[in-house]
């Protein structure tokens, strides 16, 4: 790998879009290294990126607990958790780097939870049998993001990074096949700006909001990734969506978002529904022990309530579809802390989850210390994203994708507390090194001139699209279209999917998209602060992405991780993977209303044996044990 010398770094401009964990970490580190960085976010401050909302924790193979954890174990858990649909090399590197992330965060002053001895505390998360999750109360995302934000602020102060708040990137500019800049809109003034750079890094988060209702922040969107896709970047595994098992159930038609109750609650909470349908309307406290079905403990004795998310979500859907769901809608299950409170006392539970319990009470007006919580799965995370190679480069030279915006590490299902780990790994430790290879060939390019034709064309197309939205002057609001799209996606491309529903969804989405361009209403003008206009652009992109997700789900004739095709299941209802789909689907754009081209990246497992995931029994990982000459016992892959 080539390196770029300090004097040459000063000649190179890098554009980082996004200031979440991945973007802020990357922008700060690239600034420290001496590059000229421009960083963009659409919120009013980089500290408000969606990463701020992560609750439960961040994984790292520190093995501080001496419970058998290792880099290999984290690698193994992540590949297996992802149902063998992730690339070994990337995941192994992630596991290696995880250790340094915690060191970096602590050095920045991130106040992780500690034990009385003054050392760091950890807890367990789903899909693992070790305790490797570091946390800061229920606000881990906030604290690690504020760490990255502080590092970024330091670089803004030195002038190495120039920050553009309230700016939305609306296109990537490519020249001679290379990414050379972006077109951004200052959302306060409405001005359209051209920014040139030797490389463009997209760290713009996930696209769960295609479902309208999700646990994502309201502004989370696919626009940046989608514009890159339209400019030739491949989109990897778009249909891999994570439905999180523990969210507060939907309560009404005007609901705008869903609230997650951190997975860490499954450490102490027990999930159940009544055994008998007749009991569903009863007060849960009046249902005796023998009439309760602790279905996760029953079906998956080895992992119990800590099975991975996809397994837990589907199991909840199964019992609710059987008519044993609880709550007003019948689409909820209980998460019960009575046993834990009896065992540990209310104070310990308050210390561990106090803020989550408060949040639950604020939303539902019910006290979870007294009665079990009611929860239901909700869209939470998207494993799919821009296709990247080992260097986190898309197939467009000079265009990189980090964090949730890429497809890289989580296969068909992400384990809890692994997104923060990946975002920070990509931003602090991976991209700042790998990007040097590309940039070492750019030191003679000189400043990128934004007067070139490609910039003018991209700017014109952005302006035309914005004007188009304003000029439609139809009768439906952007949100009404978004809601309609979300309903199609949730019903036909959600927790379980089948070929018939997916085919219907495709034509319904196309019809909705057509109607959008005839009948949407966007008030005001393009040259002012206009949140409805911003939303229109995002929903227009979701209306295209939705179709690609459906196409991908239709192509994948198997069930794996979060992608459950009803036609492919075992007799006991578990997912049935098919060997011929052991590949990454990387889709190439061919134009609106044209079928995209599928490229397949074969997944080769050299270090792990591909097995059927089994969370019902205890299995041993086969990490070889090496004895070194020093007499030390070291566990290595």
């Amino acid at each position, binding site marked *: 790998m080539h390196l770029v010398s300090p004097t040459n770094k000063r000649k190179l401009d890098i554009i980082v879009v996004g200031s979440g964990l991945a973007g802020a*970490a990357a922008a700060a*580190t690239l600034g420290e290294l001496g590059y000229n960085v421009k960083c963009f976010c659409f*919120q*009013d*401050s*980089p*500290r*408000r990126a969606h990463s*701020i*909302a992560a609750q439960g924790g961040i994984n790292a193979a*520190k093995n*501080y607990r001496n419970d058998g954890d290792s880099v290999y174990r984290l690698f193994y858990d992540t590949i297996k958790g992802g149902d063998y649909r992730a690339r070994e090399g990337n995941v192994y590197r992630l596991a290696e780097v995880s250790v*340094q992330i915690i*060191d*970096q*965060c602590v*050095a*920045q*002053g991130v*106040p*992780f*939870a*500690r034990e*009385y*001895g003054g*050392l760091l505390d950890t807890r367990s998360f789903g899909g693992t049998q070790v305790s490797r999750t570091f946390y*800061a*109360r229920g*606000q881990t995302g*906030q*604290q690690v993001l*504020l760490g990255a*934000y*502080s*590092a970024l*602020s*330091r670089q*803004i*102060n030195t002038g190495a990074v120039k920050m553009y*708040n309230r700016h939305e990137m609306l296109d990537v500019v490519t020249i001679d096949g290379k990414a050379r800049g972006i077109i951004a809109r200052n959302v306060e003034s409405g001005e359209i700006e051209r920014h040139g750079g030797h490389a463009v890094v997209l760290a713009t988060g996930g696209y769960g909001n295609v479902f309208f209702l999700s646990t994502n*922040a*309201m*502004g989370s969107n696919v626009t940046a990734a989608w514009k890159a896709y339209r400019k030739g970047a491949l989109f990897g595994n778009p249909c891999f969506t994570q439905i999180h098992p523990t969210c507060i159930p939907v309560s009404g038609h*005007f609901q*705008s*978002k869903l*609230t997650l109750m951190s997975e860490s609650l499954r450490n102490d909470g027990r999930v159940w529904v009544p055994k008998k349908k007749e009991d569903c309307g009863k007060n849960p406290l009046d249902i005796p022990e023998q009439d309760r079905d602790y279905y996760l403990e029953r079906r998956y004795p080895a992992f119990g309530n800590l099975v991975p998310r996809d397994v837990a979500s589907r199991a909840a859907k199964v019992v609710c579809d059987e008519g044993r769901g609880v709550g007003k809608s019948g689409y909820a299950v209980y998460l019960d802390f009575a046993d834990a409170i009896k065992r540990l006392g209310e104070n310990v539970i308050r210390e561990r989850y106090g803020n989550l319990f408060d*949040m639950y009470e*604020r*939303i539902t*007006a019910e006290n979870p210390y007294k009665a079990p919580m009611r929860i239901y799965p909700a869209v939470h995370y998207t494993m799919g994203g821009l296709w990247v190679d080992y260097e986190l480069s898309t197939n467009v030279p000079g265009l990189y994708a980090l964090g949730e915006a890429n497809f890289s590490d989580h296969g068909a299902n992400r384990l809890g507390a692994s997104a923060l780990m990946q975002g920070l790994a990509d931003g602090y430790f991976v991209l*700042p090194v790998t990007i040097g290879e590309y940039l070492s060939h750019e030191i003679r390019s000189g400043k990128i001139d934004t007067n070139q034709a490609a910039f003018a064309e991209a700017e014109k197309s952005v302006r035309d699209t914005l004007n188009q939205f304003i000029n439609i002057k139809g*009768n439906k*609001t952007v*949100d009404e279209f978004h809601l309609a799209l979300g309903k199609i996606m949730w019903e036909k491309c959600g927790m379980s999917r089948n070929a018939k529903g997916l085919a219907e969804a495709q034509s319904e989405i196309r019809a909705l998209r057509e109607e959008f361009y005839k009948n949407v209403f966007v*008030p*005001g003008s393009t040259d*002012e*602060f206009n*949140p409805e206009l911003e939303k229109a652009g995002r929903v227009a992109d979701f209306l295209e992405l939705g179709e690609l997700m459906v196409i991908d789900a239709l192509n994948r004739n198997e069930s794996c991780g979060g992608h459950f095709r009803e036609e492919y299941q075992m007799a006991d209802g578990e997912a049935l993977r098919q060997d011929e789909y052991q590949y990454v689907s990387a889709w190439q754009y061919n134009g609106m209303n044209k079928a995209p081209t599928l490229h397949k990246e074969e997944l080769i497992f050299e270090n792990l044996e591909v097995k059927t995931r089994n969370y019902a029994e205890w299995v041993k990982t086969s990490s070889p044990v090496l004895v070194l000459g020093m007499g030390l016992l070291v566990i290595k892959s």
Partner: protein
Amino acid sequence: MKLTLKIWRQKNRQAAGKFETYSLDNVTEDMSFLEMMDILNLQLLHDKRDAVAFDHDCREGICGMCSMYINGRAHGPENATTTCQLHMRSFKDGDTIVIEPWRAAAFPIIKDLVVDRSAFDRIVQAGGYVSVSTGSAVDANAIPIDKTTADKAMDAAECIGCGACVASCKNSSAMLFLSAKVSHFALLPQGQAERKRRVLDMMRTHDEAGFGSCTNTGACEAECPKSISISNIARLNREYLLAALSNDTM
């Protein structure tokens, strides 16, 4: 329930603003305050009028975007609650609700209920960090920190940077925000090396941004959605004095 809303409308930074009155039906108790605003906007858009602009993103009380001054209180009537976490069960049928933006010289209004809080970023840029570049950290467990201290640092670090403290203060002081950041680092061993310079630089930037000084009325603590304690301001004052009196500010 049925409500009357009096909302501050202002086209842009330069324009003069004024209150507009709207009435709204079909609001239910389970709705969040921002969902109520969504319904108002739906109604306005159906009448081909401009929607009310307001800042929001996470709707979970953590990003610090939402910022409404409701019936004379920052974030509305409930204690320790952000605007987005406020639910309509805190109001009654027939209520009139007055909604304004944060008002402070250092937070100019951009449009309707949206204000410019970039002064907060500038305060942090002046010193709200530990200067540790990526890759130079020692093992995370190399420096034990007793749990009480770590918990106190976390209490301070919970600030979401919303600006309610400024909006509630008659002097428009941002001392609660500033003190939370200074305390977070002053309590931790990692924050020691830059302790003195940090507080001086951040305080100077605070004053330059046009925030007022603190006269200990306690309004900020009462309105802070994260219950950041005013004792942080006492610590800030100690830190500031100590640094100002010492001739070695490194």
